């Protein structure tokens, strides 16, 4: 930070030096022209030589042509609404000359402004045609003044923002360790309606392909199929009759039977009867030594 401050100071004095040569402010004249690497550079008024390093500092110090113009205006305590275009242009051109000698690629924007200043100056020189009412053509400076004011307010706003208390610079968030406690995972709520709407969509999509025409058995059968599958294993034979629950009545027995038949059809189970009229066993097909994963 101190580095930046002192380089700004360098430019101030350097700029003051230029000012001394152009506007003749006597009290500034004994200051060194610029400080470069800690050495005072003497002003050489003949060719206005500026060491390259100092010019870079200069270019970094001004945020473009509007900033430089504002500086020139402020330094002379001039009202922005009443800029002496000729004089400001002359001073501005001195800076441009300085820049041109060194870093042309950096100064394109400054040259555009120079052109604008010269244009304003030339328009002001033209005699106003008789008969044209005052203000009809507009003051040639108006656009420049508008831009300068516009830029100035945001330049000021930038400084204002920089003075706001800033997190990590002026204020720091206060924080304590979080307590050790269990973190709960909250599962989202779902309505049946959402599930059914999803199903409707998927059926509508599947219906578009004829080979996917989905026929659904009564849900009680599908449910029973799951339950039967879950209750039998590949390791042992389950007796057919144990799958039925008499308490469910005729209806329940029918559902179970349909479920078993459907499971057989889908080859999800095997029915085995080793002897005629012997007990029927139900088994998951496949190797007996395989464990059902679950």
């Amino acid at each position, binding site marked *: 930070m101190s580095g930046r401050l002192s380089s700004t100071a360098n430019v101030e004095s350097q700029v003051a030096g230029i000012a001394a040569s152009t506007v003749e402010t006597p009290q500034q004249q004994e200051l060194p022209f610029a400080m470069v690497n800690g050495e005072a550079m003497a002003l050489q008024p003949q060719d206005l030589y500026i060491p390259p390093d100092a010019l870079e500092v200069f270019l970094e110090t001004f945020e473009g042509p509007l900033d430089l113009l504002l500086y020139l205006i402020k330094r002379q305590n001039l009202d922005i609404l009443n800029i002496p275009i000729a004089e400001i242009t002359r001073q501005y051109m001195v800076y441009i000359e300085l820049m041109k000698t060194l870093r042309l690629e950096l100064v394109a924007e400054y040259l555009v402004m120079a052109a604008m200043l010269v244009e304003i100056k030339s328009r002001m020189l033209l005699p106003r045609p008789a008969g044209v009412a005052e203000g009809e053509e507009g003051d040639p400076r108006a656009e420049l003044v508008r831009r300068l004011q516009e830029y100035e307010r945001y330049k000021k706003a930038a400084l204002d923002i920089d003075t706001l208390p800033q997190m990590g610079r002026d204020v720091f968030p*206060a924080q304590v360790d979080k307590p050790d*406690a269990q973190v709960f995972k909250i599962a989202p709520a*779902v*309505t049946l309606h959402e599930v059914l709407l999803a199903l409707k969509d998927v059926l509508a999509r599947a219906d578009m392909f004829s080979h996917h025409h989905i026929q*659904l058995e009564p849900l009680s059968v599908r449910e029973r199929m799951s339950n039967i599958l879950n209750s039998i294993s590949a390791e042992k034979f389950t007796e057919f009759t144990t799958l039925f629950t008499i308490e469910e009545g005729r209806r329940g027995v029918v559902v179970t039977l349909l479920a078993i038949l459907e499971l057989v059809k889908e080859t999800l189970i095997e029915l085995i009867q080793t002897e005629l009229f012997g007990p029927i066993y139900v088994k*998951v097909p496949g190797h007996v030594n395989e464990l059902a*994963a679950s």
Partner: protein
Amino acid sequence: MNSQHLKNIVEAALLAAGHPLTLEQLTALFAEGEQPAREELRSALDELRQDCGQRGIELKEVSSGYRFQAKEAFAPWVSRLWDERPTRYSRALLETLALMAYRQPITRAEIEDIRGVAVSSNIVKTLLEREWIRVVGHREVPGRPALYGTTRQFLDSFNLKTLNDLPPLAEIRNLDELSKDLFEDLPEAEFIIAGLPDVAEDATHDTVASAMTTEQHNHTP
């Protein structure tokens, strides 16, 4: 240095640091020549500890120094800050669940076949974790894919006594005509409507919104 001033600096530093500070570290906050004596620091810390009597935080000395922490007594409330917020389930998950309910026992490949797109392992994992589905067996084809079915927990979550209480397929295909009172007294529905503004940023918001629209559409004669 004024002891109140010292106390304030110590408090501000301990709370801003975010980790415990030793007496040395606290001393180092001050410029040479302005550094408080150990006893001054200790008594500032003592006072800060006492000030916490009626507050939500306390000052503790741990192995790496002093730190403020939320009092244990308030942990049940404070720890809710880290509860994982519910995110909406994706349309893919809901479709998978619906197919598992209506076509059980069913393998993932069969679901993919009907849906026309892959079913991610995450969806199956989420449904298993929620205990809405379970593996009821394996299909005896290469790879022995798991067969999924729904659980009692699934029925309970949706207020169903048996799967038979689900509307038959024919009604699903014409869901627009589905009697609205089927959903009227589902408490979860209210919860979702109330919670909707909070999930505005959620990626699945659209799905929810369109579901809402459809529902509202159903309700309007």
